């Protein structure tokens, strides 16, 4: 059974958001403008994406899939940068974050499409785009958290890092503790959601497939696959970004050089 939603159904749900905005306005919580703008953005963006996806699914052309995935990647790269407390210098920050996103998400998606799911053709947009979207979304969060923690902690503890260098440690050793802590920060959300899946929360994709009428066991199999892909994609992405940034924090004489990386 699949129940299609009408515009009226969506309007009813929108009334709830409006009520919340009204409440926020009456209680002077200062949340209403941001809430309404976000609700408007989600409506417009998702309607647009629905139209684009409908069109791309009909075309099923490799070139269009490439174009869309490139746009997704670029936006995710900028999103990572905008979540950093300490701003990185232009192209370096973008290059490192987008490069790590690309290496991890694209490799894992490619592997899943060609070896595991094997749709025909392998780049079939109905599989490739949602799969990549989920990977990019989660990897983006992991990378943004790990990167922010690394740069922020290294900045606060720059005297400690230099002290360790003075005692003859290599740059790699001197920032080792901070890198390990940042790795944990980047991976904790996905590890937690794997641990809680099914008991505390029903993951969004599982819920979506079940609502769309898929058999629960089939939906669960997909969800497990996605969890594994997302956690490994996030892990590789975070490892890569931490490695690149902690290298970039030092010059070739292993001196701590925030001036090379930060604005």
């Amino acid at each position, binding site marked *: 059974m699949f129940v299609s939603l009408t515009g009226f159904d969506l309007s009813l749900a929108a009334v709830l958001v409006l009520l919340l905005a009204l409440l926020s306005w009456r209680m002077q919580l200062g949340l209403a403008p941001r809430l309404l703008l976000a609700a408007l953005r989600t409506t417009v963006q998702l309607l647009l994406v629905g139209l684009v996806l409908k069109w791309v699914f009909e075309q099923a052309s490799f070139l269009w899939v490439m174009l869309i995935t490139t746009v997704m990647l670029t936006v995710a790269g900028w999103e990572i940068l905008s979540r950093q407390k300490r701003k990185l210098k232009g192209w370096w920050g973008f290059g490192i974050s987008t490069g790590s996103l690309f290496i991890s998400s694209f490799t894992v998606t490619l592997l899943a499409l060609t070896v595991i799911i094997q749709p025909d053709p392998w780049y079939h947009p109905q599989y490739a785009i949602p799969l990549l979207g989920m990977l990019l979304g989660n990897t983006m969060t992991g990378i943004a958290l790990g990167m922010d923690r690394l740069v922020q902690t290294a900045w606060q503890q720059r005297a*400690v890092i230099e002290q360790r260098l003075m005692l003859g440690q290599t740059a790699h050793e001197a920032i080792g503790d901070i890198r390990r802590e940042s790795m944990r920060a980047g991976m904790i959300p996905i590890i937690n959601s794997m641990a809680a899946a099914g008991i505390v929360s029903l993951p969004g994709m599982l819920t979506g497939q079940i609502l769309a009428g898929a058999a629960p066991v089939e939906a669960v199999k997909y969800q497990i696959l996605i969890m594994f892909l997302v956690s490994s994609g996030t892990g590789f992405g975070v490892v890569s970004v931490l490695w690149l940034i902690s290298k970039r924090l030092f010059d070739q004489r292993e001196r701590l050089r925030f001036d090379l990386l930060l604005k």
Partner: protein
Amino acid sequence: MSSISFSISRLSVLHLHDVQIDIHQGECIGLSGPSGSGKSLLLRALADLQEHTGEICLQQKKQVDFKPCDWRKQVALLPADSQWWGDTVAEHFRSVDESGLQQLGFEKDVMSWQVSRLSSGEKQRLAFLRLLENQPQVLLLDEPTANLDAANSGVVEQMIRHYLESHKACAVYVSHDLEQLSRIADRQFKIVSGQLESA
């Protein structure tokens, strides 16, 4: 005079220009100058923590021919404020130097102390001992007794002299206390408007 162990030629770093010194084995160079004149900056450049131009050699081998970590083990900088990253003192030492601890007035159990419990004077003395673990050839000491009372200052000065003799090492000793410098240093320099001058 014994052979030259540490030589600095045409060294420039930020507002310091054309620093030139040859330091002999066992020698202690005293360095003074007003705050902000660049004493600490010079020490950082010597330890290769600060970008600089010019040539620095340890026993005729150039700084750039050392791996950075090996250079810093040999040319060891003791900063004015020591930093500690572990919870206990022991996490910052590879082994326990009982006689060193004793000379500095510590019992062996100091190793199990919490770093947060240490006074600034205790930190300074332990940081000095920690620095000697690598058995450096050059000691770069930035106000190593600033937080110590007269008795402990004397002990540290004595340990430095003893170390320089027994390890054929040399030192650059930064201090505001000219009396102390005349006591411990073989030659004295001061930084005046970006230049190193004999004092």
